[in-house]
């Protein structure tokens, strides 16, 4: 019995790793995606918007199965890990792009006008005026998203990534005690999301002090 508790707990590494990978991909890709959405001609913009809508509309479980069971018909065989990272990375790119859009929309019209009046070049305006303010308003939203991504990563258990939920399922098969095993899994998820919530509140407070918009 006890050995299975450790067996489940080790899965926290895979859960956190998968979540972190997807989140980093999301941040890295969402910034250029949002840049394209703001500067590209309307046609391209429409295409990007449509892609984001489709990624978010189709459930992640469907995407996972589509890539994991469907792609081999094209001769593309991906293991559980690459599949999970691609699907969750794509999902977090779409979600973070939307978060950034909201953050940019929250910047007052006067900020753009002031930046232009100062003759800032486009890049400097983005770097010194837009980015700090977007960061300020999006950090708490990004933290909330990271926590939801942590829970979303449980879906990877359905294609055999050995993370918390998968291990709890396996331990249930071996011992028959699903109640204990999934309670343990649940507690681990709670413990994992607590520090994230705490850290976000601290960072939020610090940024609030530094970029106080009074």
């Amino acid at each position, binding site marked *: 019995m006890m050995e299975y508790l450790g067996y489940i707990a080790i899965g926290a590494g895979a859960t956190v790793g998968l979540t972190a990978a997807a989140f980093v991909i999301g941040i890295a890709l969402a910034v250029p995606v949002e840049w394209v959405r703001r500067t590209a001609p309307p046609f391209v913009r429409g295409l990007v918007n449509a892609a984001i*809508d*489709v990624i978010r*509309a*189709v*459930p992640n*479980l*469907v*995407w996972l*199965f*589509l890539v994991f*069971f*469907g*792609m*081999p*018909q*094209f001769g593309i065989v991906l293991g559980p890990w690459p599949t999970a990272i691609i699907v969750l990375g794509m999902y977090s790119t779409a979600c973070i792009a939307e978060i950034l859009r909201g953050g940019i929309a929250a910047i007052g*019209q*006067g900020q753009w006008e002031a930046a232009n009046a100062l003759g800032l070049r486009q890049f400097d305006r983005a770097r010194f005026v837009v980015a700090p303010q977007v960061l300020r308003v999006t950090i708490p939203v990004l933290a909330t998203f990271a926590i939801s991504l942590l*829970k*979303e*990563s*449980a*879906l990877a*258990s*359905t294609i055999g990534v050995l993370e918390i*939920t998968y291990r*709890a*399922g396996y331990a*249930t098969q071996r011992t*028959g*005690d*699903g*109640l*204990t*095993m*999934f*309670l343990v*899994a*649940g507690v681990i*998820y*709670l413990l994992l*999301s607590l520090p994230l919530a705490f850290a976000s509140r601290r960072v939020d407070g610090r940024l609030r002090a530094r970029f106080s918009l009074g």
Partner: protein
Amino acid sequence: MDTILETLAALFPGLGTAAVLAGITLALAYPLGAVFALCIDAPIRFVRLAAVAVVEVGRGLPLLVLLYLIYRGLPQADIVLDPLPSAVIAFTWSIGSYATEMIRSSIQAVPDGQTDAARALNLPDRVAFFSVILPQALRIAIPPLMNLAIKTFQLTSLGYAITLSEVMQAAHRHGSVHFKFLESFVVAAVIYAAVIIPCSVLARRLERRLSLHLRPVQGVNATTQ
């Protein structure tokens, strides 16, 4: 073409199950959410703590884990439930917890001036809450609750994990019988997108209409709020 139609026919019944699950869940979760929103700020300590615990667990655990906990865990306590009732319980718990937080923050979003005004008019607290604050709060809560409803439908795909015969389960079965996973899951994706994208567009439009009065006036450096 024939295989696509065949697949569509095989998956379509799953849409009914998904709709039933989402419908029952929302019918239970939203009223419960309102009750829990009140309980979290209740004057009695025990009620408050119990409500916080239920909501935090509901929001903190992945829905998949809640599903497994009820479908594969409860039999350990001699409670054996079919897939649909199990899914309804897990979904109501999770979605209800999100609804609780949305309704609660909507109540807090009603400007303080409304409470002051109600007090100035000497309205009893109960009347002030139920006829002044709550109607405004519910109006604020409508857009997020609509999005949560759409999310709920999307999440019915998790029913697959506990052998509930919804769209995903049907797609997986059809895919493994005919060995056509790609076609099955593409059709499943199209079914979800066909329901969710129009709903999202409608929700966005309604949200814009509901918040028209909050928009700053064009050309004026409006400092509302």
